[in-house]
């Protein structure tokens, strides 16, 4: 096959793959009458922000956007702290149950978290009886589960980064009089930062995209819904406000898209690590 034939074919495929996203953004900017027209066209002469306004005011999308951000950011911050400490313990120290813990970490990573909705639902219900913030209908419950789901992989991935920091560095720091605590946060932490970036993006995306747990836990507190749920609320049989739905989808996709572009090199190089957003 001639190279230009292949290239044209590849470009056509790229266009087809990107088309749904193009259509989403285009529809978000189309005026309402063009969206419900029986002859949709792949352009618009009258771009408008009406759909975004509707999504943000009528459906209160701004609130859900903030909720999603709050959950994802807290999950990322906590998972960085906890996984960094755990990864350090698992690489820098020798203790008896180390190997057992590593294997357990690997096994736990393989459990389909979706199967745990029933027990987690009841767990959150009883947690809510004593600490309401972490109970059902509160964002805290989502933070807890996503933290738990993101930790095994984060620890697993950070282990490699911590191990790559030479032991001599720690000895040198100790000789210079740095305490263990200072070494940990002022020397080791900055050095494993690249690993932290990659794991945080994955934790962020998992928390951001979650639909199942948000749907299970946030039952009646409408004000505590997250974006995926809110978007689902828009979808009503036979009377969908497609303009607002596409505007909402655009708002929801853009943060993830930015993150993905930022870390794509790391994602590609971590291939066998089996990573997906």
């Amino acid at each position, binding site marked *: 096959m001639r*190279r230009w034939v292949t290239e044209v*074919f*590849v*470009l056509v*495929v*790229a266009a087809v*793959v*990107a088309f*749904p996203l193009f*259509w*989403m953004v285009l*529809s978000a900017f189309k005026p309402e009458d063009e*969206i419900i027209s029986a002859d*949709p066209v792949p352009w618009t002469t009258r771009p408008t922000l009406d759909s975004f306004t509707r999504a943000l005011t009528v459906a209160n999308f701004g609130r859900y956007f903030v909720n999603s951000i709050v959950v994802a950011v807290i999950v990322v911050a906590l998972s960085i*702290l*906890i996984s960094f*400490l755990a990864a350090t*313990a698992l690489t820098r*120290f020798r203790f008896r149950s180390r*190997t057992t813990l590593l*294997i357990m970490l*690997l096994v*736990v990573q*393989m*459990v*389909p978290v979706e*199967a*745990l*909705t029933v*027990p*987690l*639902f*009841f*767990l959150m219900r009883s947690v809510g009886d004593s600490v309401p913030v972490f109970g059902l209908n509160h964002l805290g419950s989502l933070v*807890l589960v996503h933290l*738990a789901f993101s*930790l*095994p992989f984060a620890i697993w991935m950070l282990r490699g980064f911590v191990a790559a920091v030479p032991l001599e560095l720690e000895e040198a720091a100790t000789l210079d009089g740095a305490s*263990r605590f200072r070494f940990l946060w002022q020397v080791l932490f900055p050095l494993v930062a690249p690993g932290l970036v990659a794991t945080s993006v994955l934790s962020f*995306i998992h928390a951001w*995209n979650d*639909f*199942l747990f948000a749907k*299970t836990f946030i039952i009646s507190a409408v004000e505590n819904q997250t974006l*995926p749920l809110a*978007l*689902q609320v828009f979808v009503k049989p036979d009377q969908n406000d497609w303009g607002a739905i*596409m505007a*909402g989808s655009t708002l*929801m*996709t853009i943060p*993830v*898209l930015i*993150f*993905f572009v930022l870390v794509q090199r790391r994602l*590609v190089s971590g*291939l*066998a690590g089996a*990573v997906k*957003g």
Partner: protein
Amino acid sequence: MTAKGQGRTAFAYLAPALLVLGGLLAYPIYQLVLISLYDYGQEQVSGGAPLTFLGLGNYQALLGDRQFWTVLGQTVAFAAVCVVGTLLVGAFLAILATRVRTWVRMTLFLAALGAWSTPAVAGSTIWLFLFDANFGLVNEVLGIQGFSWTYDKWTAFGLVAAQVIWCSFPFVMVTLYAGIKAIPGEVLEAAALDGASAFRTAWSVTLPLLRPIILVVTIQSIIWDFKVFTQIYVMTNGGGIAGRNLVLNVYAYQQAFAASEYGLGAAIGVVMTVLLLGITMFYLRALRRSGEVL
């Protein structure tokens, strides 16, 4: 530091992680199995009726239920179609990507990155809109306005499968592309010098070298596609008309949270976990063989 001191510091560092993982993963797994052994419905939850231990009763009910077998079959078939589709598209495009100039490849990868990063809920709604009976672009282009893709069982499954393939082929493509690129040029040159045809080189040199990676992406895809939830739930509105588009994951959710049969829902969860752990064992062995070390 003494060995004992090391151990103590290590556990201090590990304590937060162990607390979270123990409380929110290990304990729920134990609870999942426990709940699956009880008759656990709305009345038991509200305290209106005493808990009755059923032993394997829920599992018996499940195995004797024709719908469970239908759903299981659908799950396997749906996952199979998604996995095969994802691998074929991903592998084909990975090969093509090695034969084009950089800017063309970057364009393809950028488009794939977009599909990959779209949140499942957003991706599902976009596809629903594109295939909408009255306002969708696809129906207009095909000239079949008014045709509902989600009404018929098989077109609905097909549409969801296409969406799943759309957002999962990029992983396969990028991984395989990296794998092909990692094959040293000398190996392929040697094959060419020995007079091997392009097809022969691909079949007898490239493919065997890529086998570990292919195995890993295959099993990873099986694990993902076996537990698709969001796409089915959003695109078929909770499992289709009369539940005919259910897969195991959505079925478990519906049994537990729509029908308040928590015990039964938990039992389905256990079945799913066991099936997936079986696949995972293969995954671990494949990883080990491809050179990953503990």
